[in-house]
């Protein structure tokens, strides 16, 4: 049922420091930015929080830059900015592929990379890209900054190491080589939630990440290991099917997800030869 809107409170910090100190003083504040996920929960009456912190105007979190040799993308970078970024196109084209397939123009203008990470849906389309790219999540509180690899960021279904007084401020992607590959399988050709989503890098040490096939986004170390050791693709596909743990839900079935994930691995391998 539709949520109640009256009685909601929102604070509008003008800087990152102000936002972080507000969060230290009041851990009940829920940060929001593009609201592309949060408003859905609000509309369905499933959002418990009533107090919010609007990060939208904190432009310092919108920077895309090279930092040492890594690519650093600010948490408030929208999908639109990602799609338009020459730097991202050069360094991480599979992130552009993912961003293009998230929602439509309205979502591209509002949805943010940090929001996709914070929301923590196993179907988040940028997450396999970040996992395959060995990205690091940069978090900051009023007191300190810390870095956690994306593959260690999630601790369970929609659960992460992010503390109530912390904000995701950026993602750092180290330089790497190899062909990048991305494929999303949704319930229709556009504007759909993923049933299976895969990002992968073809290099001597292949990297493979999948979404919507486990409680969180996952890397597939065993499948990667087999491919690295030169196992035939069919063998790697068998390993993949054991390495994932998809479920039946209203969008698809366990069997379909397993089969399609395996087929996508085969397609990735064939297309990046």
């Amino acid at each position: 049922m539709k949520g109640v809107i009256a009685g909601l409170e929102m604070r509008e910090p003008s800087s990152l420091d102000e936002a972080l100190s507000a969060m230290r003083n009041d851990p009940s504040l829920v940060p929001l930015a593009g609201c592309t996920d949060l408003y859905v929960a609000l509309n369905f009456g499933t959002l418990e929080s009533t107090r919010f912190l609007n990060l939208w105007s904190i432009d310092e979190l919108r920077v895309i830059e090279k930092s040492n040799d890594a690519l650093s993308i600010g948490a408030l970078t929208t999908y639109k900015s990602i799609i338009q970024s020459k730097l991202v196109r050069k360094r991480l084209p599979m992130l552009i592929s993912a961003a293009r397939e998230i929602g439509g123009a309205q979502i591209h203008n509002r949805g943010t990379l940090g929001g996709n990470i914070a929301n923590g849906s196993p179907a988040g389309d940028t997450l396999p890209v970040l996992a395959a790219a060995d990205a690091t999540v940069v978090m900051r509180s009023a007191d300190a900054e810390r870095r956690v690899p994306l593959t260690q960021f999630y601790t369970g279904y929609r659960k992460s190491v992010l503390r109530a007084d912390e904000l995701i401020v950026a993602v750092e992607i180290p330089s790497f080589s190899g062909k990048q590959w991305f494929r999303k399988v949704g319930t229709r050709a556009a504007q759909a939630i993923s049933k299976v989503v895969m990002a992968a890098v073809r290099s001597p040490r292949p990297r493979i990440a999948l979404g919507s096939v486990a409680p969180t986004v996952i890397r597939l170390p065993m499948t990667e290991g087999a491919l690295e050791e030169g196992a035939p693709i069919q063998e790697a596909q068998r390993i993949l099917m054991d390495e994932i743990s998809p479920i039946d839900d209203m969008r698809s079935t366990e069997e379909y997800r397993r089969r399609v994930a395996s087929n996508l691995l085969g397609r990735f391998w064939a297309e990046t030869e």
Partner: protein
Amino acid sequence: MHASKIASPLAVGRNVPRKDSAEKVAGAAKYVDDLVFPGMLYGRTIRSTIPRGRIAATRLAFDQRGFVVADYRDIPGRNVVALIEDDQPFLAEREIRHTAEPILLLAHESRDLLLRAHVEIGYERENPVLDPESSPTAFKSLAIDKGEIEDGFSEADIIIEGEYRTGHQEHIYIETNGVIAVPQDGGITLLGSMQCPFYVHKALKSMLGWSDERIRVVQTETGGGFGGKEEYPSLIAGHAALLALKANRPVKIVYDRAEDMIATTKRHPAIVRHRTGVKRDGRLTAMDIDIVMDAGAYVTLSPVVLSRGAIHAAGPYRCDHVRVRGRAMMTNTPPNGAFRGFGAPQTQFAVEVHMERIAETLGIDPVKLRETNAFRPGDTTSTGQILGEDCSALDVLRRAVRRSGFRTRQRRYAGTNRGIGLALFYHGSGFTGGGEVRLASKASLGLTERGVQILVASTEIGQGTRTMHAQIVADALGVPFDDVYPVQPDTSNVPDSGPTVASRTCMVVGRILQQCAEEMKTRLGGMTPREFFAAHGPMIVTSEYEGPSGIKWDDSTYRGDAYSTYAWACDVAEVEINPDTFEVRPLKLTCVHDIGKAIHPVLVAGQIEGGTAQGIGYALIEQVVMREGSMANAQLTNYTIPTTLDTPPIDVVIVENPSRYGPHGAKGVGELPIDGPAPAIVNAVRSIGIDLREIPAVPEIVMKAIDLGKGKTDARHVPL
């Protein structure tokens, strides 16, 4: 200057501007949720959360200050939504037959307080019936018999059997259901989004036990219906009226999308079984068809949905021996109801996929099989109706085959992951059998200072009613299109021209308006409307439907002329299947539709394109996931309809083989386009070698069909 001396260009057949385009494009058109009345409250419906059982206790667990609460005891008249059977209550008394059944109504001036109000309902649960085939209750059974089925089977060289399944479908009109009830002067006015103001009027009269003139129903600008606003608005209007009368204040109820999807009607799922006798050369000798439709918890319109489905079940094919048995079964799910096509999409899906399987079995080209069997003028349908020259089955088939390059593509796609398939189909225009005569619809034209006013209960729901009616009237009167204007359907101001359903608004109501215009022209005696008005003041002309002579129908035996005319069409679908994901992507649809006469070609093409897109969704994407009798994916995020990227180029060809009855030869067009895409697409998939017999053919279903076809030994890597 005298009007007869001005050659005003004819409006019919031209793409004149829509009567409502300026307001809609500017965002000025007022929909029900745009309207606010002084002192207005908002209404909310408390619904059952179990599929079957009895209400044990209800408790209002909130501070009731400022609230108005109504339940069944507040109904002064009869607690049934008057339609076909008197079984569905406005508000449940004790028995619960489906999830989301209305139990209590709340109203408050604050939407937030309304949403926060918590009502506890205790139940005695019973086991729900969710499988229509194991349901003990048939709401309607019917039989159609032509010839002697056993004679037909004894003439056959081969007998081919098959079972076909179709799912629910949601209407997804852009505007959800909504009404406002305004009590005034001892009566009540209902304003709302609806297709049939007089259905609402009838239901309210029965619920309130009031006389006609105390109830006024006004259709507000309506954002789509597709059948979903045929019968349902009667229920929500009853709710708003109860609250408004109890509060003595206006009450607005507008559903949000989730409530609309969980609570309102959907297309009937169906299981159709065919057993068909054929000669080796493809001639049909016997068609034995069994139809089971899932009606949901109350009768609503299921008997007539079943009826139209059964009449169309044998497809547009000649066969001397036909037996059709149909049942609409009760289940403990929200009632299914009217939806564009009204039973025909389900049964024509089955017969067209079955025809494809007959072609495959006999090794006959699917076009050839259909050419052999397609109706010609003079043939008789399963109900014994003799078809006239307005039968175009063979013509649309041949045009569609040529236009799409069917045979070339068939060869080109052979052995690839692409396929091509077709469906030949038809749709009876207007109410079934004697329905139109029983309705005895009326329409009026008013001569006013401004010009000529169209007074009908037919609603504009996006399909172009206002424009198309004005075109017909303008030409019949010989006045410019701009001098004819529509009025808002309002039961206190317009005659009952019947519901806006059944592809009848142009053919039937348009024809009555044409009669009105002809009579008005006679009365004008050569004067222009302005000259006449200046000399004599206003004039109103009313006309009533006159059934075409020679049309006979017997409802007890299902024999006779089921419809005064049929529209005919052939769709060709080209598809590609993704070997990794089992997704079927339509590449192109060619739609050749004989609709008699295109009064407004652009609007007609719009109906065909829109119906085809909706048919693509029905075929491939739109899946209502039911869990314990309730829609689990009641969100647009998870019940997905086709986007532009899911909709391929649609090549529309309009054929005009006139009917004797409609204005300018027009037949119905609204529903025809939804009947063909699903079987055409599934047949295209079949041509790739995948034995698909079920829709929606979501990739999960296609994957299983591929597995069954190839054996499960190496199903992981299907070479397509």
